[in-house]
């Protein structure tokens, strides 16, 4: 089975308001997909639903991850099955050290992969190595999770976790926003280092710039809760030039007939 992720006609509401109006998406193993779209179009909602956040009503549709019914799995089960979400707004957890948090996470995921848990020393070794890949000081391991990290440090920390946990499908929600150009390159090189025929990425971004560094196989436009256009990497360039407005008419024309 070649598709790691299949989303079919996914309709999702939050607090009674429908946000996703029927999303269809297929991601094959080893591919990088970019999702672009204006503010409020539902990109983070889609990412959150895939990662298993509570508070979303699934009105219709299904999501298959490695052939499993993803929407029936707990968030921690999804993570152990190799799904990873880099948060648009990483959460601060004062008082829980990065070391405790990450070692627990990594060992849970290793357990699910049938690997031995790492003792603290082995963990520190691998954690320090991966931190150096994204330029995070090893002292951060003793700090609270994201506690008082700068915006850029939080984003690097997400990529560090990606490098540490080695997921099969990574969803990156605007990991590039708020980054200076050097940090952007660090993030991109972290992702590129992880690219492999076994691993897939869904990269949510507003900026074509990121896609110069992380070259996508497919670019999708999510507009008002639907994917209204998919294409190659040149679609991102078109969007950069023309914005989203030119898609509206097409989008409505394309999708309207399919909703009741």
């Amino acid at each position: 089975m070649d598709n790691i992720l299949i989303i079919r006609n996914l309709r999702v509401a939050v607090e009674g308001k429908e946000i996703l109006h029927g999303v269809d998406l297929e991601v094959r193993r080893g591919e990088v997909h970019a999702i672009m779209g204006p503010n409020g179009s539902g990109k983070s909602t889609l990412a959150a639903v895939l990662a298993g956040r509570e508070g979303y009503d699934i009105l219709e549709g299904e999501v298959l991850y490695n052939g499993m019914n993803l929407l029936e799995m707990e968030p921690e089960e999804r993570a152990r099955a190799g799904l990873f979400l880099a948060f648009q707004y990483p959460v601060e957890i004062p008082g829980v050290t990065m070391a405790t948090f990450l070692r627990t996470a990594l060992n849970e995921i290793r357990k699910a992969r049938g690997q031995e848990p790492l003792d603290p020393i082995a963990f520190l070794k691998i954690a320090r190595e991966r931190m150096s890949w994204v330029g995070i000081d090893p002292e951060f391991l003793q700090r609270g999770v994201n506690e008082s990290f700068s915006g850029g440090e939080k984003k690097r920390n997400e990529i560090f976790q990606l490098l540490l946990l080695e997921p099969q499908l990574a969803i990156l929600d605007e990991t590039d926003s708020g980054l200076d150009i050097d940090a952007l390159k660090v993030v991109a090189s972290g992702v590129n280092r992880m690219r492999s025929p076994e691993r897939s990425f869904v990269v949510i971004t507003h900026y074509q710039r990121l896609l110069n560094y992380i070259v996508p196989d497919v670019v999708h436009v999510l507009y008002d809760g639907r994917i209204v256009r998919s294409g190659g990497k040149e679609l991102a360039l078109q969007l950069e030039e023309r914005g989203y407005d030119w898609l509206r008419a097409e989008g409505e024309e394309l999708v309207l007939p399919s909703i009741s």
Partner: protein
Amino acid sequence: MATTELQTRLVETFHRWLQESNHHRWSPHHPLRRIALEAFQKMGFPTSRHEDWKYTSLAPVLRPAYRIEPPSPAETSSLLSQLPALESLPGPHIWMLTGIPVVASLPPYVRLDSLLYSDGEVPPWLGEILRPDAETFIALNTAFAPDVATLSLAGQAKEILHIAVVTSAVEEPQLSQPRLCLTLEPEARGRVLLSFHTLGSYPSLTNFVAEVRLAPNSDLELILWQTEPSESFLITTVGAELDRSARLTVWTLALGGALIRNNLYIRLAAPGAETQLFGATMVSGQQIVDHRTQVEHQAEQCLSNQLYKSIADAQATVTFTGRIYVHPRAQKTNAYQSHRAVLLSEKATVNARPQLEIYADDVRCTHGATVGSLDEDALFYMRSRGIPLDYARALLLHAFLSEPLKSLSDAALWEYADILIAERTHLQAVKP
């Protein structure tokens, strides 16, 4: 106020003691004790109509038929063979055995007077910081305390002085009234750990009272260690008066006991005095913990800071009442107070009452009380990394509750506190 059976028995007992005893130093004939008895009779035990006891009912506390007599010398020595081990704590240096002070080993910088067993004098300031007519349990302790342990700390103590307060209820319900007077000499620095324990399975009520005097530039760290799971009742009252530039830090760790009421009365009596009050409380089952703090800014340029955190599960109740009183002459006051609570069950209760009375103009004062549940975003973030829900919860609870104790200066004690909090929040039990 209805006169309870316990009150009647207490008054009768006191009168019997008056007849039986001769006029030794701390006999019931001591004027202070007689004044205290009168005050107790006048005030009686507070009911829930009393403003200070609105949220905590004393009914179950007053019900058992406590023995009022302190242990005889023979009973005290037999108690010595049954003491709890307390291996993870330093010392203990002093035991208070159902109100009777017994020295185990004293560090050189400490002087201890006991009125019963050594030739101690009744400190002339006894009853001045905590006046017997101020509150029922102060009156009761002043009238009935079998002895007064008077401690004086000089110099810069490095080690912790541990006083283990034990109430024995092995054969019958017991009322215990330990009394402590503590002085820090000028420039002295000391750390005192007060841990509370019970022996036996009968109900017990420990009514502990301590008066603390901090001379100029002295610095005291006081730790109240209330961690033993038990069905006992504990009421503590600590009154402290701080002279010029003195510092007092109090940490309270309240995890065990059926009902705990902690009263802290702090008087910042001279310029530059500072107090920091920290509390970590976790209750479950039917437990009740009630903290009452009162910080009185009497002089200029004093600082007070209070941070209390509480977790209440099942049908348990936590109450925090924090009174800050700033006198008109106490200009340039800084006073901060915060109580943060997490409710884990719909039947658990948290009451928080800040009480601010500010009569000076140049005052910086903030206060806040929050009650919430666990941070859902943090839980989801952890779960999205593969961490099981149970463990994510325990990590958050542990982090939340240990924060006020972070500043404990003794690393070993901090680690032990951290372990107890981890146990209490089931961190180990659910560790994957």
